[in-house]
């Protein structure tokens, strides 16, 4: 018996002061600590800050380096389509300076209309990269513009992660902030838009978005006018960077309204909101592309309305402070009855003003946001872009992965207790979930919200679990101590039963039954509310459950990390202008796009015009430096429809259209030889639809056989005679000995042997992915005359109704 007690005691001695987790340097003998304790505890705080700083630094490094897969696996090159335009604008900016940039009329695109780049582009990204480049050059660091552009996005995603930290810290403290920052640093949705080389507006805009929200919350929490001003400037940067700024200018008023309705109005709210509207709108109007839209389009009206509301509320509060309650009631009824009349009048005027503007004050993209079916019904040009489609469920899992499951837990954590800041985060989440459901591109706005929520959830869960374990340990050592302190032997409660005892005690104390599964734990988290002076002790879970929960959380986080790295390395790293395939004899590179663009840029005249579908417009102007007819900006539907019409017309009509546009070369993308699915034949129906939307003689059913789109022998003659078909499959049949097997459509082509009369092949790339044709010059007049009269007689028979097929005649 004695020996047993001894062993018990010695065990107690091995870990005598584990409870002292809370206290510094407890392992040091008692005498030693008395002198050391003062500096060490302040050291602990300093250490905590330094730790947080280094964690943040590492998060920045993580955010930057996870986006470098594209550079390592491929090369340091600009990706996709829009980034090429941004790159070209940046080149112009660095070469000609800011004033020429504002006045830049670009005659290389939308020939013969041209485009005022300075007035139609969101300049934030290009100005940012241009500034970085300028600073680097003034420091004699000779980085090329391209390099700067390639690495702008990763750098700004590090900034975005830090901004997420700041925002979440304002909402739920440092721990949640750090977790949110880590999650945001590698959320696949954001990675997809900000890998190195993806030089697009969103890369910078997401940072600006989060940072604006942070400054708003900061102002709301502090009531400092300084932060309010910063907030306006940050909003200005956001307006410069991305059209998505309307999200901010609608979300913040909504939150303000929410606060007012729930009786949370305070002077801090006023300071957070009023300067933003006034300063922000003034600053936004400075951006040429926004200009008077900042006060004239409906997207901004919500903010003005709330601006009025907040003033009314402020006035009401002021009067309430002056009058006695009874008097106030009388005044209120009076004001409300008069106010209602005025309001109805104002609303009527507003409606009239809005209704008088052509699209009811809403742009097409915004309308398609409110009504998801709007675009597919009315605007094929918006519907034809894949990133404007509504997302599917798998794409949610692909883009935010486990965060989708953590978000609900985060919402619940935000409700306990509900503060101004946490209500804002909830609102942000809800709105962004809606928008992401409308347009897959807006998943990008949703991702930060999901990260913040998940960060809060994870951090709370960790908090509860570790607290329980800590509590258990302290209990354990305590009980051991008391056990040992007892002189009477025989009171040997095993630690196991002791735990149960403490648990029971806990349960009694808390009057809460223990939880069964992990999810519930999180939902039942009670934030240890320091300020509420309740004597309630924070929630403590059974130790086994909490260890298990910790394990599961870490597993979940590990899964997220693995998925994110996979997404960054495999799914989103391809630059899309270089394609690779793994075959049995190693890596094969398809560099056809650049081959074609290089050929165009070196072997055609400087002012030759190249016609292609609008997808390739930006790349052609940037890489080949040739004038294009339409490009990815898609601002002129008619012009795009003209090109669509030409592509869907028979050769002769197409030649006439192109010739009237002064086109010299026609570029088509063809994937049938190597199996590249996003080629022009697959996009062809959109050309028909967009063309047919403006020029009604192009009818979609003419290209479909029984509602099916096909290019084999069952295809309609209109389809087989269209220019796109001919340019794509010209002499294709000779590549595989007379079969003409298309590897994308997995079928033999319908019309195999044909000649081109008005076009000649001038270049085809190595894998046939890009084919460039030249318009043959007009025939000699005398021969033409005789032929014309002949052809008139012959071609008059098949179609009588539509004689003029060229929309330019």
């Amino acid at each position, binding site marked *: 018996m004695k020996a047993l007690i001894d062993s018990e005691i010695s065990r107690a001695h091995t870990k005598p002061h584990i409870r002292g987790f809370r206290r510094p340097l407890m392992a040091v003998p008692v005498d030693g600590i008395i002198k050391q304790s003062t500096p060490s505890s302040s050291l602990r705080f300093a250490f905590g800050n330094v730790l947080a700083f280094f964690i943040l630094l590492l998060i920045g490094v993580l955010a930057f380096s996870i986006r470098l897969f594209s550079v390592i696996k491929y090369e340091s090159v600009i990706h996709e389509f829009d980034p090429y335009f941004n790159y070209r604008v940046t080149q112009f900016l660095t070469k000609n300076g800011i004033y020429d940039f504002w006045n830049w009329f670009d005659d290389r695109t939308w020939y013969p209309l041209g485009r005022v780049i300075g007035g139609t582009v969101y300049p934030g990204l290009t100005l940012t990269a241009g500034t970085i480049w300028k600073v680097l050059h003034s420091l*004699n660091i000779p980085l090329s513009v391209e390099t700067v552009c390639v690495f702008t996005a990763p750098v700004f995603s590090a900034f975005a992660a830090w901004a997420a930290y700041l925002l979440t810290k304002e909402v739920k403290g440092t721990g949640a902030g750090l977790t949110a920052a880590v999650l945001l640093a590698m959320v696949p949705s954001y990675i997809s838009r900000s890998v190195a080389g993806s030089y697009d507006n969103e890369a910078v805009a997401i940072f600006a978005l989060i940072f604006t929200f942070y400054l708003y919350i900061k102002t709301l929490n502090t009531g400092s006018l300084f932060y309010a001003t910063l907030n306006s400037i940050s909003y200005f940067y956001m307006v410069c960077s991305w059209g998505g700024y309307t999200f901010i200018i609608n979300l913040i008023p909504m939150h303000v309204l929410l606060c007012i309705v729930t009786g949370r109005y305070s002077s801090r709210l006023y300071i957070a909101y009023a300067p933003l509207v006034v300063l922000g709108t003034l600053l936004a109007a400075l951006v040429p592309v926004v200009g008077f839209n900042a006060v004239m389009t409906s997207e901004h009206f919500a903010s003005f309305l709330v601006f009025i509301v907040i003033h009314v509320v402020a006035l009401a509060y002021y009067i309430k402070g002056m009058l006695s309650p009874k008097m106030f009631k009388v005044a209120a009824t009076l004001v409300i009855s008069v106010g209602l009349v005025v309001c109805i009048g104002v609303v009527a005027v507003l409606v009239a003003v809005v209704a008088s503007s052509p699209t009811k004050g809403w742009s097409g993209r915004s309308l398609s946001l409110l009504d998801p079916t709007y675009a597919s019904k009315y605007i094929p040009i918006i519907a034809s872009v894949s990133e404007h489609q509504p997302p599917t469920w798998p794409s949610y899992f692909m883009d935010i992965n486990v965060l989708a499951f953590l978000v609900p837990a985060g919402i619940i954590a935000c409700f306990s207790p509900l503060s101004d800041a946490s209500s804002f985060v909830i609102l942000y989440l809800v709105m962004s979930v809606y928008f992401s459901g409308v347009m897959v591109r807006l998943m990008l706005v949703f991702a930060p919200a999901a990260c913040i929520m998940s960060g809060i959830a994870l951090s709370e869960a960790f908090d509860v679990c570790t607290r329980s374990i800590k509590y258990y340990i302290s209990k354990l050592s305590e009980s051991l101590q008391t056990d040992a302190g007892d002189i009477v032997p025989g009171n040997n409660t095993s630690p196991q039963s002791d735990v149960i005892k403490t648990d029971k005690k806990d349960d009694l104390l808390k009057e809460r039954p223990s939880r069964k599964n992990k999810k519930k734990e999180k939902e039942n988290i009670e934030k240890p509310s320091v300020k509420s002076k309740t004597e309630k002790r924070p929630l403590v879970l059974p130790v086994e459950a909490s260890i298990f929960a910790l394990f599961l959380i870490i597993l979940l986080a590990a899964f997220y990390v693995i998925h994110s790295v996979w997404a960054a390395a495999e799914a989103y790293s391809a630059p899309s202008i270089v394609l690779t395939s793994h075959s049995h004899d190693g890596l094969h590179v398809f560099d056809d796009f650049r081959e074609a663009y290089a050929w165009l840029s070196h*072997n055609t005249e400087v002012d030759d015009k190249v016609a292609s579908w609008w997808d390739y417009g930006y790349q052609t102007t940037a890489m080949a430096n040739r004038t294009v007819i339409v490009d990815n900006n898609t601002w002129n539907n008619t012009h795009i429809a003209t090109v669509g019409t030409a592509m869907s017309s028979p050769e002769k009509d197409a030649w006439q259209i192109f010739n009237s546009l002064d086109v010299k070369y026609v570029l088509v993308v063809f994937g049938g030889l190597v199996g590249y699915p996003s080629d022009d034949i697959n996009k062809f129906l959109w050309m028909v639809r967009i063309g047919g939307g403006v020029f009604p003689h192009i009818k979609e059913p003419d290209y479909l056989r029984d509602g099916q789109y096909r290019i084999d022998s069952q295809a309609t003659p209109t389809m087989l005679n269209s220019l796109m078909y001919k340019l794509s499959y010209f002499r294709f049949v000779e590549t595989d000995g007379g079969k003409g097997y298309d590897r994308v459509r997995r079928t033999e082509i319908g019309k195999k042997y044909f000649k081109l009369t008005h076009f000649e*092949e001038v270049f*085809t*790339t190595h894998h046939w992915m890009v084919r460039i044709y030249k318009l043959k010059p007009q025939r000699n007049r005398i021969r033409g005359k005789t032929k014309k009269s002949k052809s008139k007689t012959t071609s008059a028979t098949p179609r009588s109704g539509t004689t003029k097929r060229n929309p330019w005649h």
Partner: protein
Amino acid sequence: MGRFRFDLLLLLLAVHWGPALSDLVISKLDRRIDLTSQIVRMTISLKVENKGPDPVSKVSLTFPEHQANNLALLVAVSTEGKGKTRGPTTNLPIKINQPDDSPPSLIWYAAILPKELVKGESLTIDVLAVFTHTLRAFPEKITQSEPQLFLFQESAHFPSPYKVKSQSMTVKIPSENIESYTKLENTKFSNSEIKYGPYENLPPFSYSPVIIHFPSNKPFAVAQELIREIEISHWGNVQVTEHYTVIHGGAKSTGEFSRLDFQTRPHVRGASAFRNLLAMLPPRAHSIYYRDAIGNISTSNIYGDSSKTLLEIEPRYPMFGGWKTSFTIGYGLPLQDFLFQSEGTRFLNITFGSPMNDILVENLTVKVVLPEGSKDISVSVPFPVKQSQETKFSHLDIAGRPTIVVEKINVVPEHNQYFQVHYKFSNISLLTEPLMLIFGFFSLFVACIIYMHADFTISKSSASYLAKLQWDEVLGTIQLLQDIINRCLLVHDKLEASLRDLSRTGDVQACKAVRKAADNLLKDLSKESKPLLSLLQSSPQAAHIFPKVEELVVKERDLQEKIMLKHTMVVDSYEKKSGGRDIENRVASIQQKITVLKQEVDDLVEFVEDI
């Protein structure tokens, strides 16, 4: 046709000029013209004999103007003696030596002899003349499947200002096929060689035009512009960057380009095109890249051995006649292979021209970027070039790097000789940039430290500033108080430990000693805490937290008392030797209170810590 007329004129002039220089006689003149590449190489071996009375110090070589304009290189080597007793060869300096009364369509070059040729003596001179742009594509435009044909025009008789006793000319063409050639007397065509001559006893300036029309599908790669930048880093690297603008200089391509034809029968339907270029880089070249304005070009290969590195590059597309492309190649070379030291100066010894095989460079610019701080720079190039100097700014430069710019037109592979750049550079300046970095970071950290410790408040008397000061003070006080509480708790632990010791050893005295020490310590601590508490109480900033702190202190004191009580009881019962169960029973109630109190104190401590 214009050229033919001009040639006739030349002939007439030449006849008039005949008797002017007749002291020298060329006893034998052999010309071999190599047309197998786009660069025409003419080797002339002539045996000169002085028949006149005066010693002669130079030999004149004349070329018609249209050839002289395209003359990229002219080298003459003289050999003394003949046959087996051939002496050493000496390079003869060559300069333009235009007599005043010569027609402008004839350009004179003079090879200065190493020693004067006296009467009756003879000397063998070997001349290498390299011409560019002398092959004229005919037809000028061809389609993809047509072969490339060229015209070459020359005189069967070398237009020498001296009498020639016997001369012959051999023209080598790339293949055995020939379209046509001028047939004179003594003309033979065999085995892809056309031989004209020998012709005996020709007067000076005799001329006999010959036109050869032949197919050639050799690569006609012409670099319209090549900028080579050689950057020396004394950290161990010579970085070479070469920017090419290349055009296919042969017959222009016209009409369709069919990839299908090119892929199925590349040697027939694309014979005139060239697909790749071969660059011979120095051995141990590393970090080789090949790219253009829009990114990396993936079609390249490297084969290396100890004597060279072969870089095979393929332009993005096959090069047909008239097609252009531009690209950049770059590579690093180990410094010790190219940089040497002698008598306090360093010199770079590196090849001048392009490393590409058989490429003609129309405009070559070589820039040698020396490290920042280089002095006394001089360049020695074995042929005439245009030189200038500029400054380049790169990483961490302040004064900039001195850059030597050497320009030359019509550079052929024969120009690919070593040239030297001499300069002085001290090793200490190597450390400037690292030191600058170190200093920069150091000052950054110092600035951070200063910022953290400095008070940047503008108005020291503003209310918020004072409140902040007070708050800091309160925080400090709470910190101190917390320490005291913690130390009290430590003492409690110590007391508990002493009780455990007691139960094990039964040593009452030791336990009492601990108790006494603890009593003193606790007394001191409570004394210490008093002024702090009163300070907190007086501070308006601490109003909202003071109750908590006070509660903590009270609770702690309570706990202290309870523990003391327990301690006394246990020690007493030990002294009275009462049974273990008895003690336990007596202590139990107190123990419970202690546990509850401890919990409360812990909570309060936690709360205070959070402030």
